[in-house]
């Protein structure tokens, strides 16, 4: 999983505004690594045998 910087850039600034109003931000995550060769993180990990099988 990788944060989308294109659509959700400058999120830290938004969090600061929320903080001033004593509001919280929750981010839902699916904590897995996508099995997709077009996903650079997965591709590099595969190439360098980083996964334990």
């Amino acid at each position: 999983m990788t944060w989308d910087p294109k659509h959700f850039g400058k999120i830290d600034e938004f969090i600061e505004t929320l903080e001033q109003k004593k509001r919280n931000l929750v981010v839902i995550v699916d904590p897995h690594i996508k099995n997709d060769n077009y996903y650079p993180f997965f591709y590099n990990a595969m190439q360098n045998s980083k996964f334990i099988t």
Partner: protein
Amino acid sequence: MYGSWPFILAKYKEDFLLAGFIWNNPSETYVKLTTQNYYNKTQLLINETLINNELLINDTLINNETSINSKENISNETTTNEKYSTELEKLEKLERGEVNKYDKSNNLEQPKFEEKLIKTDKKTVWISESGIIDISLFADPKIINFYFKFHKLIGFANLPPLFSLGYHQSRWNYKDTQDLIEVDKKFDEHNIPYDTIWLDIEVIIYY
């Protein structure tokens, strides 16, 4: 499942004795709790002695010969007694050597423990796929003290954070950060209080 802390509690008479243990093993764990309703003759004898001495409590002694079931349980007695007699029959057959206990084709349930062991009606089996047996035992006559001891070990429950009780705003999904800012602003504009905003999965690429 992984990461859970299985805990078992047995209750004897009201304010008489509570006993339990916590199984400290984070691996996949199997817990089986069975109610068996058969006794061998030694057990019946022991039970009777214990009843006379008021050491055992009604619900731990369900069998037809001592008839100590409360009236509410009578409807269940037929099935209990049937199970009891078939189990006993099987055990007797085995004792007389009429059946081979290693032959599974006769559908004979093998005795789980040494025959001389006392057979009670509640049994529990705990199996973890790895690790060591690490248990903590608790016992106390009072339930409030029992749980105090228990929580002294595992910790006391926290109150929920105040913000978690307020309104939570969530949508699948917001277009971008600008969209988020707008939504946040609109809440203030319309005087709607909210404490938490949730971002769904679209903020992640390659999920």
